[in-house]
């Protein structure tokens, strides 16, 4: 007997989405371990816990649609189709990495995939995505721009100015607030005077919607509506995704600012991968063994990417002065 698929995605698409979210999770879990071992240099901000938001939004996008990411960008990259091996090499500072080792975790970019870069400057993506959307408007192919930013970065002037600019120029932009409750160690509520991002969007004349960012289908549906609107010339909107952060602000953060038991609760009750897996198996269209098989394949991919990254050569002195204009 054929089981009815209750979801707006095909079985194959659902498997792909699950694989993508699992890939982000295992990529980050692995970085957490390897950073702890001292294998990885620099500042590393992990996206684990937030996968459903990246996957739910990016499912609607093509390479011609642009995203501006954040310092916590690995999940955006993977969901936008950036090569995982290239990313791992980049994070290890190796030649052949997404940016040839020059950018690192905070600056992974792949313009061919419409990924305009992770960013070390909070709020920098707002104006940039307005530019991407302006270019899209000129091309007139229905492409959109998505600007990701955290609850903390939502208070940057650049973001607020960009919401106004996008409104004034009627740009196909979605402002996505990734609200994980914290900016570094400071709670969202301390740093943001208004409770609702929907209210804030209204102040700029933009429609806004809040969703449970740990529920893939909730994000997928809400994102689908605002992206469709933007593609059809309806202009910008704001989408707030409420989510949880699995690890510290960056690797090495002891997280004493969290309430006792908070992390246990997050991992037990707000695990977006488990939520998706349960939804799929409960509907009876995908079996646990299929999911387990994907989990295993993802582990192989991540292991492969780490091996490749470790084996890859470092850049050399000649690479130091390429990709920049030097006239003396």
């Amino acid at each position, binding site marked *: 007997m054929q089981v009815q698929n209750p979801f707006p995605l095909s079985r194959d698409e659902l498997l792909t989405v699950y694989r993508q979210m699992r890939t982000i999770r295992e990529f980050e879990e692995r970085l957490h371990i390897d950073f702890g071992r001292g294998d990885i240099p620099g500042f590393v901000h992990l996206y684990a816990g937030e996968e459903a938001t990246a996957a739910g939004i990016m499912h609607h996008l093509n390479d011609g649609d642009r995203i501006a990411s954040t310092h916590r960008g690995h999940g955006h990259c993977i969901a936008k189709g950036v090569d995982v091996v290239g990313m791992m090499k980049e994070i290890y*500072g190796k030649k052949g990495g997404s940016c040839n080792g020059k950018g690192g975790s*905070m600056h992974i970019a792949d313009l061919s995939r419409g990924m305009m870069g992770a960013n070390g400057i909070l709020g920098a993506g707002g104006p940039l995505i307005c530019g991407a959307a302006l270019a899209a408007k000129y091309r007139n192919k229905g492409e959109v721009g998505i600007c990701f930013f955290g609850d903390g970065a939502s208070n*940057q*002037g650049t973001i607020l100015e960009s919401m106004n600019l996008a409104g004034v120029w009627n740009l196909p932009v979605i402002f996505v607030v990734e609200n994980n409750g914290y*900016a570094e160690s400071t*709670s969202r509520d*301390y740093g943001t005077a208004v409770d609702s991002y929907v209210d804030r969007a209204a102040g700029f004349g933009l429609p806004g919607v809040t969703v449970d960012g740990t529920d893939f289908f909730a994000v997928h549906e809400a994102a689908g509506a605002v992206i469709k609107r933007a593609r059809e010339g309806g202009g910008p909107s704001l989408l707030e995704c409420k989510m949880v952060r699995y690890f510290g602000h960056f690797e090495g953060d002891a997280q*004493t600012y969290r309430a006792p038991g908070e992390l246990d609760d997050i991992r037990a009750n707000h695990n977006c991968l488990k939520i998706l897996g349960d939804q799929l198996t409960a509907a009876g269209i995908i079996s646990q063994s299929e999911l387990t098989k994907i989990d295993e394949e993802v582990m192989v991919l991540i292991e492969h990417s780490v091996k490749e990254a470790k084996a890859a050569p470092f850049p050399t002195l000649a*690479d*130091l002065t390429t990709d920049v204009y030097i006239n003396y």
Partner: protein
Amino acid sequence: MARKISMKQAVNEALDQAMAADPTVICMGEDIVGGAGGNGEMDAWGGVLGVTKGLYAKHPKQMMDTPLSESAYIGAAIGAAACGMRPVAELMFIDFMGVCFDQIFNQAAKFKYMFGGKAETPVVIRCMVGAGFRAAAQHSQMLTPLFAHIPGLKVVCPSNAYDTKGLLIQSIRDNDPVIFCEHKNLYAHECEVPEASYTIPFGEANIVREGKHCTIVTYGLMVHRSLDAAAVLAKEGVEVEIVDLRTLSPLDMDTVLESVTKTGRLVCVDEASPRCNIATDISAQVCMHAFGALKAQIEMVTPPHTPVPFSPVLEDMYIPSAAQIATAVRKTIKGSK
């Protein structure tokens, strides 16, 4: 006074003593306390590298966390300074200056002059500078020359814990806006520091090593690279004199000129990009005022004219090394008239 503390502790102690001595001294910045508004520990961070940890417990009314809105809170610090407070605003990394630059160079820097001397702006903006943290292009810059370029701003970049404490307290007492640059790779560096409060006047360079063959003029982390180079050169019989500028604005040209007049040779070492930086400025001034004393052409040691790369191997090649500095000194000796 045998007590040794790190540069990180020196910053903490200076702020502690300044706040205790003067209730108009207030500190503000992102996560300089940490844990605000949450259900866990307060003072959870004390700044991103823990520099201000513990100050909240001692001065709860003078330690304020801010939203992630540099333009607003750095500007507010400047406005408060013009209205009787002595704010010390922390801008985590100097790289974030772009976000709030107008408030600094069009507002703070110009009030006094533009208003015909009627305003004082005793604000200090503390920020981390420099490469070597594997923090990539937007968290590693040495942007000191940008600020030294602007009339009305004072710019400090200490190389050790002793100077840090004295210069930070001086910065807080000074009535002009001060950009106080802390090299993140020097935070752990320790030296003897008096417990009592003290100040070091601006515009007084420090001769950290005396020598007669060649002068190195530098500041910040590069003081240490220059000392390493000097140790190698000493074994070759070359005695280097190292001038640590300490404050880039005001600039102590007298000490520089005196030293160059004595040695006849000059190597300028700067961690900032090579065009229009502190090294080029010093070179130009030495050419103008002590050209006749020079026995060899001036050498400069800087990074290449590139953004700071992420990859550790590239970053290590980017940052001027003791070997490069020693080579430059040898060139001035060989190339002498």
